[in-house]
């Protein structure tokens, strides 16, 4: 009795995990965050408006789950290790191409950005959310999204030697 909400939720899992990884940068925590998001989304599904896109709605839930988790970690005095890099994208040696090398370079450059800038960059450029959707996910004005995104892009261009 899978309905479209459930199908779309499953379909959104890869994007949720990418977003979770961009927030916490540890794969085991990212997996837990995705699960918390799924559970909360199922519990709150009556409040989902089918007229809006599901992904931004899910991203907002996942982000709130992350904020809850970080608050708890701070309360418990747990340090979050942010040095772990995301696992290598592709293991197949034959496919370690220029694209993958450039991916790693791009991700290193993103990792060096302040959190608030990296987050808008991920949502707009990786997940292709609109500025308005990104503002909704983050609970900030669209103008703030644009100013953070512009600063992030200029910093990224410098790091990647794009100019």
């Amino acid at each position, binding site marked *: 009795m899978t309905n479209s909400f459930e199908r779309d939720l499953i379909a959104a899992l890869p994007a949720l995990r990418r977003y979770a990884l961009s927030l916490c940068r540890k794969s085991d925590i990212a997996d837990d965050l995705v699960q918390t998001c799924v559970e909360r989304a199922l519990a709150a599904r009556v409040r989902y408006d089918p007229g809006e896109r599901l992904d931004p709605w899910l991203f907002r839930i996942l982000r709130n789950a992350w904020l809850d988790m970080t608050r708890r970690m701070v309360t*418990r005095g747990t340090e979050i290790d942010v040095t772990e890099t995301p696992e290598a994208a592709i293991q197949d040696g034959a496919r370690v191409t220029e694209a993958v090398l450039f991916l790693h370079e791009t991700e290193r450059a993103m990792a060096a950005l302040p959190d608030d800038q990296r987050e808008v960059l991920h949502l707009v450029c990786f997940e292709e959310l609109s500025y308005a959707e990104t503002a909704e996910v983050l609970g900030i004005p669209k103008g703030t999204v644009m100013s953070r995104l512009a600063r992030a892009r200029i910093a990224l261009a410098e790091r990647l030697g794009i100019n």
Partner: protein
Amino acid sequence: MTGTDIDDEMLMAYADGELDEHDAARVEAVLSDDPSIVTRLAVFSRTREALVSAAAVRRADPLPGQVLSRAQVAIETAADLESDAKVVPLARPDRRLRFLPMSLAASLAVVGFLGGYVLSPYARVEPQDPRFAILGTTGLSEELDRLPAGGRAAIEGGEVAIIASFRDATGALCREFEVDSPDATTVVSVACRSQAGWDPKLAVVAPADDGTQYAPASSLETLDAYLAAIGASAPLPIEEEAAALDDLL
């Protein structure tokens, strides 16, 4: 208009396809006249390309199997709760309907009371009844501190599922939950938080549902009567529930 009239954010919005026709035309008019603006635009269009191609590689990342399987279990659990709610044949306040567990089947026995408040004609069972002891199960109070509504977790000798969170008339956080034991017993409980921890307020034993029994209206009214008696609020939205759980830490 010249290139200096166009700020970075507008150029970026142009590169990202976020401008309306009018503003896009303004940018294009300047682009053809002012080579310096082409260079500024390139910062945004080329970073976008870099990120979009990086994203394309990341999209090829396999989803770890456990992420999918855990999500599927959560979906099935939610679907069970949902379909159970639909078969309950009674008019009851909307506040709990969609959380209603099927396991509230026939032959309910109320085994715990608040201050001797008699809730139903069912036989009273003293607190030392072993079924009441489930509220002291190792791991249960930790899960009550942690799990959101709809969440499930294994605890000693069974599994706990949180049905809903609400506040009583005094503002204390209360949680309605059920504990499923391997012997097919399900205990539906309400516990409220005090300084000392989770105080059990009510426990209702229901035989595990075998698919043939339906809850009589009167058994559910028992829970409703109790919740009304303590001035229970509507279930907390997930954000409020999460904030309330955070406050426990």
